């Protein structure tokens, strides 16, 4: 038996590796530029077609508005204010309702999810009621809240809370239930008390589930607040939409919709940053695109 070793040229191999790395980096940069370029191109083509369609009568701007009309509407809201006061105030009111509802619903959902997830008896008893409550179309509760809590902020916050609570609760509960058995046993044998197990094993392992639900449920909170304002309010983006609707002002409806979308995107961005900070222990997702 003799050992056979392959012949090699160290220097030549090193230079070829450097060159290959440079090529790979250049390829990555080109691909990134291509993605961004295509995204912009799609946006421009879409807006141009819409605008041209409106100009040439293919699309009726009375019903479906046009990009320039929407822009003029937003600009006039920004510079001159809306029929119900400055635009910033409307945004502020809606955001305040959304955040309050989101915070109360999320905290309540997480707490209830952990308590029921850790206690089998409570979970078995309450699961049926939660299923029933979850199957009620919750937007309808908006009318109830308007009757009970009036036209002010409380009724919108209440609607946002019920929209958020069940989503977060279901995820927190599932997250607690999916916590790894071996990990819990490990903590137990290392000397953790039941409280320590909940705080240092159960909650961190449910965190990915909870954070995933926060993404979805912020959108729900916004829907709750806007629908609440729709049903009856004195301020807010929802009222702005319903006023525009009443005046057959399609520009106004679309403009308000775009402002709401921008609000949701900004908050989504903040939640993603928070998530990356909280779960920095997680491996990077496989298809991470530098956006």
């Amino acid at each position: 038996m003799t050992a056979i070793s392959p012949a090699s040229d160290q220097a030549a191999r090193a230079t070829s590796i450097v060159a290959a790395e440079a090529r790979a980096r250049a390829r990555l940069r080109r691909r990134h530029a291509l993605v961004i370029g295509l995204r912009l191109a799609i946006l421009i083509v879409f807006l141009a077609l819409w605008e041209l369609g409106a100009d040439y009568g293919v699309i009726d701007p009375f019903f479906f508005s046009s990009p320039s009309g929407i822009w003029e509407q937003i600009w006039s809201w920004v510079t001159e204010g809306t029929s119900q006061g400055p635009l910033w105030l409307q945004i502020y009111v809606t955001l305040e309702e959304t955040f309050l509802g989101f915070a109360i619903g999320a905290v309540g959902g997480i707490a209830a999810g952990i308590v029921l997830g850790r206690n089998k008896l409570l979970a078995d008893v309450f699961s049926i009621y939660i299923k029933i409550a979850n199957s009620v179309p919750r937007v309808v509760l908006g009318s109830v809240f308007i009757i009970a809590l009036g036209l002010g902020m409380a009724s919108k916050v209440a609607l946002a809370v019920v929209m958020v609570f069940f989503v977060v609760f279901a995820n927190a509960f599932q997250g607690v239930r999916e916590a790894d058995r071996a990990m819990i046993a490990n903590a137990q044998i290392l000397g953790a008390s039941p409280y320590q197990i909940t705080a240092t094993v159960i909650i961190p392992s449910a965190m990915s589930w909870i954070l995933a639900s926060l993404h979805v449920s912020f959108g729900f909170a916004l829907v709750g607040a806007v629908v609440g304002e729709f049903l009856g309010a004195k301020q807010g983006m929802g009222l702005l939409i319903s006023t525009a609707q009443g005046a057959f002002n399609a520009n106004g409806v679309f403009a308000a919709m775009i402002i709401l979308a921008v609000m949701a995107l900004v908050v989504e961005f903040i939640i993603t940053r928070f998530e990356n900070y909280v779960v920095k222990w997680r491996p990077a997702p496989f298809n991470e695109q530098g956006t």
Partner: protein
Amino acid sequence: MQLQTMAAEKLSPAAPPADAAIAIDDVTLRFVTPDGHMMTAIRDFTMTVARGEFACVVGPTGCGKSTTLNLVTGLLRPTTGNVRVMGNPVTEISRDIGFVFQADALFPWRSVIDNVAAGPLYRGTPKAQAYDRARDWIARVGLARFEKHYPHQLSGGMRKRVALAQTFINQPKILLMDEPFSALDMQTRTAMQDELLGLWSELKSSVVFVTHDLEEAVALADKVYVLTAGPGTVKSVYRIDLPRPRVMADIRYDQKFIEIAKVIWNDLREEVQLGQSRGLQTGH
């Protein structure tokens, strides 16, 4: 059985002495499955581990090997018979026990040092002291450069080293291991076995090491328990008189080692076949 002469001495199971580290005395464990059937996990099971002794448990799949460990931790209670740890009946999880799991049981959201410090922190050691000890143990398993890494950034072998440090930092008098190295490749496993023997000889813990790998059992143990196909009971016990310190990479070519492994394998083989044919019948 004339082969059991030199190194593999067959012992007769006897009632455990009072001062043993672990004494499982004539234990039967039954439980009711969710569909209402009675299952016997182990029956008439007797096992003694003296202080500082390294015992391995081998047996076919599903014979209740892991059950024996859970009896010692107190996570399972015997239906009949009794279990004593350090002379005291098992009532709760003893602070003297350390457990290394088959699966990855590290906390993925904690860095290496936070994982290793977990035990002392849970037990109320002041923070600074806990981290000092953690740093010391991480260095002992050769991971000093990786203190700040998270488990997902480490290889399987490195994660096992962290798990060993996490367990050993509590200085367990009793060390339970449930097929800890079965997921590792051959070279890494050999290195980990050496690492384990090194740590064990320093700490002088009493060890119960469950494995399905007979050669691993013979290489590591003072005493090997062979279990029957489920419901498990002790078929035979062998004392392994190979000299220590042992070097894992070399011991498998040792003539004496090969003889012992052969003797025990003859004993184990029929149980493995029985276990497999049963598994084919029931579809497990």
